[in-house]
């Protein structure tokens, strides 16, 4: 069993201090589906913009003055740090306010925070990424990273599920990735529409179509709670080691560095010790309600 190497995660680049956000300009906003959109941001301060680095799986706190702050995963290519993107579901006061500001608006940004998907530990392995709904957003940087370093791993697979074809985020890219021979992409929907010719059903059903080489596979899961559980357990049943299953979790977050207490998960702070957890490290509390 190979343990993931300790990953090098860039330190948080912040404003004047870690509670104070850096101003960032919204360059453009693109709708992904009926309530989800992707914003492209440029940090206003040039030195900060140029030194801003992050790793796939990390998140930023996005701030709208007087409204509040929300923890949002970075969804763009980590090797193009100038094109910083966040994919956001506009369902709260902050996320709706960002949408309303539109291109040209100035918001605040703190980060990057948290742990990232493994990169060193997956050398010469097969990688299976499982995402549900907007859970594809924190996975997307990892897909870019794997495409940039395609020889690093063996087979790379993405299993994605969402409610309907119209609910797919990054729909154009998903179709590109489906055509890309470097990736094996399977997309399923809960409810098909007339033009949909792909699989129908929940994302874990796709696993039936996949042959998993348990000893040489790393799994990365990000989706709603039910998907995180079902997918992790299913891979464990296929004898993938708990050290090779990574799950990205969501919690209420205020500070981003383990000081406000909101995101506690057992002894972990999801903002600092997560959001990406190795299953083996949380196995004792995983799927225990209200921990």
């Amino acid at each position, binding site marked *: 069993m190979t343990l993931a190497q300790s990953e090098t995660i860039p330190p948080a680049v912040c404003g004047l*201090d870690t509670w104070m956000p850096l101003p960032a300009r919204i360059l453009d906003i693109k709708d992904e589906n009926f309530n989800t959109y992707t914003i492209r941001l440029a940090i206003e301060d040039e030195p900060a913009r140029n030194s801003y680095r992050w790793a796939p799986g990390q998140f930023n706190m996005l701030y*709208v003055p007087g409204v509040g702050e929300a923890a949002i995963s970075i969804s763009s290519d980590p090797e193009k740090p100038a094109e910083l993107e966040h994919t956001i579901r506009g369902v709260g006061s902050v996320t709706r306010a960002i949408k309303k500001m539109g291109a040209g608006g100035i918001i605040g940004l703190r980060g990057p925070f948290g742990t990232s998907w493994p990169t060193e530990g997956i050398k010469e392995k097969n990688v299976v990424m499982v995402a549900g709904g907007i859970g594809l957003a924190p996975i997307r940087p990892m897909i870019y990273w794997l495409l940039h370093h395609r020889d690093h791993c063996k087979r790379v697979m993405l299993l994605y599920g969402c409610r309907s074809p119209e609910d797919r985020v990054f729909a154009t890219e998903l179709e590109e990735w489906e055509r890309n021979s470097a990736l094996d992409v399977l997309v399923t929907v809960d409810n098909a529409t007339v033009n949909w010719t792909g699989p129908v059903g929940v994302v874990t059903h796709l696993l039936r179509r996949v042959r998993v080489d348990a000893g040489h596979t790393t799994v990365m899961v990000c989706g709603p709670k039910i998907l995180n559980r079902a997918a992790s357990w299913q891979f464990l049943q296929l004898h993938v080691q708990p050290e090779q299953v990574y799950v990205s979790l969501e919690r209420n977050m205020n500070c981003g560095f383990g000081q406000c207490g909101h995101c506690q998960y057992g002894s972990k702070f999801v903002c600092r010790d997560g959001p990406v957890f190795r299953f083996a490290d949380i196995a004792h509390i995983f799927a225990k309600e209200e921990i």
Partner: protein
Amino acid sequence: MLFPKVALAAMIETLIGQGYTVIAPTLHRDVVKLKPITGSDEIVRGLRDLQDGGRYRLEEGDGTLFFEYVVGPDSAKCYFFPPSQELFAVDIQNGRFAWDQSRTPIPKLAILGLRPCDLAAIRVQDRVFAGRKPAGEVKCEAELYYERIRAQSILIAVNCTRPGGTCFCDSMGTGPKAADGFDVAITELSSGFIVEAGSETGMSLLHKLPVRDPSSAELELADLKMELARERMGRILDTRDIVELLDGNIEHVRWDQLGARCLSCGNCTMVCPTCFCSTLTDSSDLAAERATRTRRWESCFTHQFSYTTTGPHRHTIRGRYRHWMRHKLGTWWKQFGTSGCVGCGRCITWCPVGIDLTEETAGIRGSYPNTVQQSVSPLQNEVTK
């Protein structure tokens, strides 16, 4: 060293003269609260407290004694980690931000009357707010505030010669005698205060006062009183393997019973001297030209504490109480290398339904509760006088 009780006034005057705001136990609506004072006559004197689950009363005590009561709801947390603290303001002009970092000056505090459990609680919060990063690293506003106010404040501790009804500092190894972390520690006798300096600052303060050497009988009496206090703790908490105990009993039936009793009011988290959770509150003026961000104490017992778009993560009171108690006594160890509980008993006293975490721990352990079965404070006899 020993100084006469009348010299307490001189000590306070000296501190005020040096620019300190003196915080001391004062009487506030029948409760001993830590408030700024201007003279020693404002310090509560001649009263003792009766504390039990959900009960706090003051009664006439020995008129010659200042510190016969123990802890009230306040602790140093109220000053070092303010209940509400503005972090910054931002002026929004033409869609741009102009940060306003004008900060209120950080006060120099002299906190008098902290108990050994309170000193232990400060050490716990030091690990939360100041222990995260080594010196030289970029620190946030709130961390810098904490570090500065801690560094420039004087702590004058009072050793406990009469434990309260809900005290269990002996179980947590934090009292009744302060071991370190103070500038001056006082042990009160009828004949005066036996004082000990814990720092250079404390030593120079004592040198300004009319101190004399205590007699060996006085020293012996002080030790005896503290030893008696140790034996007469109102509560006992068996801490053996407590992390494993709580980890291994996540689904214990006791949590269901607690969920039915707890009102989820959050009192325990507000009076706890180590609870550190906070929420950032953003607000703006009506013209949306100036926005402020404030950090406020938050309680893990509120519904919104764990709220995400899929609802609150801890949606039952059972889950919230379990989180608080497991954190306080268990997972805190993994996070900060210490217990989150210092044995002050405030959460028991100020719980409106009298939930007692020592009793609950004993219940989960399966042993009979180790609480002293008295409805009022057990220590009202002659031996300690």
